[in-house]
């Protein structure tokens, strides 16, 4: 094969300058979004989660039933055109109960993740920024408290607080759940506080609280968000676990854990009743885990391969 002169043409003279950026600048968030979009599993998870949230919000409005009315004439029906997921022993519509239950489970999961993380970030930020005796004290306290198995303590706390409501579960999970995020945040703040932008702000007279809240904590958010995404499934698990041993949301209010527990007692007769909420619990936990994996890769440039 021979090269022909006509295959080549001269570059456009003068338009290329080495100083110019070849591509438009990207911000950190845009960069994260681009990496995340490249990961099929993460995008898939995000889509599924958005759909689930949509269904949890609007699913109960799609038919005329509510989640608490008993209708003994319609008890124990299989999925049909009238009751899309069938009915339970008391004749309650399971389509409605599954989505209302999802609302409860997801609400608990999100609140019991964000609140402990906020507290943990504040404590960790203070501990890491001030260092010295404060840090020493807080870290030893966390070392000691970390050793206490949280689920066992949740059981005791819920018994004390009186079981049954969303707020009880969230308070219990908050009391036991802030330790990990405090430790993570402290480690990140220890690295960040040596950086120039912190020194610059300090020189300009920023107060310690302003430094922590405006400069240090926002810069830990990337890793914290990954942690939160991974925590949500464990809270969903904890809720289901507590429901299973009889300490979850009180009937007639549904939650996914509650529905699974109720259905596991009549599994042999009505397997679909068990399988339907299980699919949604599994799907939610799966998607948050996969999204967390994707976010970790997207947010942390060092981990990229």
């Amino acid at each position, binding site marked *: 094969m021979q090269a022909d002169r006509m295959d080549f043409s001269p570059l456009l003279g003068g338009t290329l300058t080495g100083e110019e950026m070849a591509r438009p600048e990207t911000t950190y968030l845009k960069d994260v979004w681009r990496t995340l979009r490249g990961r099929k599993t993460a995008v898939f998870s995000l889509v599924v989660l958005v759909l689930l949230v949509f269904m949890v919000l609007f699913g109960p409005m799609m038919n005329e039933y509510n989640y608490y009315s008993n209708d003994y004439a319609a008890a124990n029906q299989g999925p049909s055109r009238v009751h899309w997921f069938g009915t339970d022993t008391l004749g309650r519509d399971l389509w409605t109960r599954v989505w209302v239950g999802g609302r409860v489970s997801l609400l608990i999961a999100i609140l019991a993740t964000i609140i402990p993380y906020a507290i943990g970030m504040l404590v960790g930020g203070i501990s890491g920024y001030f260092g010295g005796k404060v840090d020493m004290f807080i870290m*030893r306290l966390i*070392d*000691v*408290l*970390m*050793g*206490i*198995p949280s*689920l*066992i*303590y949740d*059981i*005791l*706390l819920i*018994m*004390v607080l*009186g079981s049954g409501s969303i707020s009880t579960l969230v308070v219990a999970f908050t009391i036991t759940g802030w330790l990990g995020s405090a430790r993570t945040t402290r480690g990140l703040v220890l690295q960040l506080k040596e950086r120039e932008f912190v020194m610059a702000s300090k020189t300009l007279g920023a107060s310690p609280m302003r430094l922590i809240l405006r400069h240090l904590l926002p810069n830990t958010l990337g890793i914290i968000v990954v942690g939160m995404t991974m925590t949500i*499934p464990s809270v969903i*698990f904890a809720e*289901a*676990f507590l429901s*299973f*041993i*009889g*300490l979850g949301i009180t009937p007639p209010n549904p939650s996914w*854990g509650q529905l*699974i*527990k109720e259905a*596991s007692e009549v*599994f*042999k007769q009505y*397997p679909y009743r*068990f*399988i339907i909420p*299980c699919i949604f*619990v*599994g*799907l939610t*936990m*799966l998607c948050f*885990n*996969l999204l967390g994996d994707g976010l970790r890769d997207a947010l942390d440039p060092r981990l990229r391969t």
Partner: protein
Amino acid sequence: MVRYAAKRIVIALLTVFTLATVTFFLSKLLPGDPFMNEKIPVSVQEKQRAYYGLDKPVVQQYFIYMGNLLKGDLGTSIKFVGRSVVDIIREFFPVSARLGLIALFFAEIIGILFGILCAQYRNRWPDYVLMVFAILGIALPSMVVGPLIRYVFGVQLRWLPVGGWGTWQQVIMPAFVLGLGTIAGNTRSMRACMLAVITQDYIKTARAKGMTPFRVVWKHELKNSLVPMLANLGPMIAGVLMGSFVVEQIFVIPGLGKHFVNAVSTLDYPLIMGLTIFYGSFLVVMNLLVDILYGFVDPRIRVK
């Protein structure tokens, strides 16, 4: 090493002390009174309270309680009349412990094997298949998997007994459900650990020396990836312990986890307190052992 171990032990002791103190004061806040009953005369109620030492001031009760704990007395159950918590633990914990040990042992080995396979065949089909399995294992909690496989293998196919305790067939399903999370978690972390080791220079050196691939994996990659895996052992033990509450319920196994759940539903407060302290201290001790072992195996830890 001694300094490192001593520090760990002090922290563990403080944890157990906090655990016991918090448990005691929380129990004082518990709603309801187990002796409140209109059918029983007030004088008898008083006597019952006095029998359990509940008529004394709270601070005094606290010191008595802590003193009893030091003597190894965890209190007396209310529903199992006259039986001490220690007695109940002694009778039922061996069942849970045996099931947990079997589950943990197989789950660790299988998880590590799966992780090795994933890392060696990374980004090829064995990796994908096992990672899907691992992710499902993490996403599906035991209260979902338990009834499901019990129905499939116990009720429909009749391959295994649906519940009970005593024969080796009865162990298989509960041990699998109990270990599933550990298998999944270990597969993932073993894969990650090994991938980190595989890129190291000494692996290249070993290959360049002409070592067989099997020996490279066995002698260098495996040994060095197992060290960080040790750190996972603590949470895995905790997971298996918590899982036993659910699994023993599903498969009708007469273990301590089942009794704990029963105590929660019958409001047997002294039993709940005693078992909380027992489980808590047990996990603290396990974590302590893992920490010390970790420091022993990896010198970098104890210097830090």
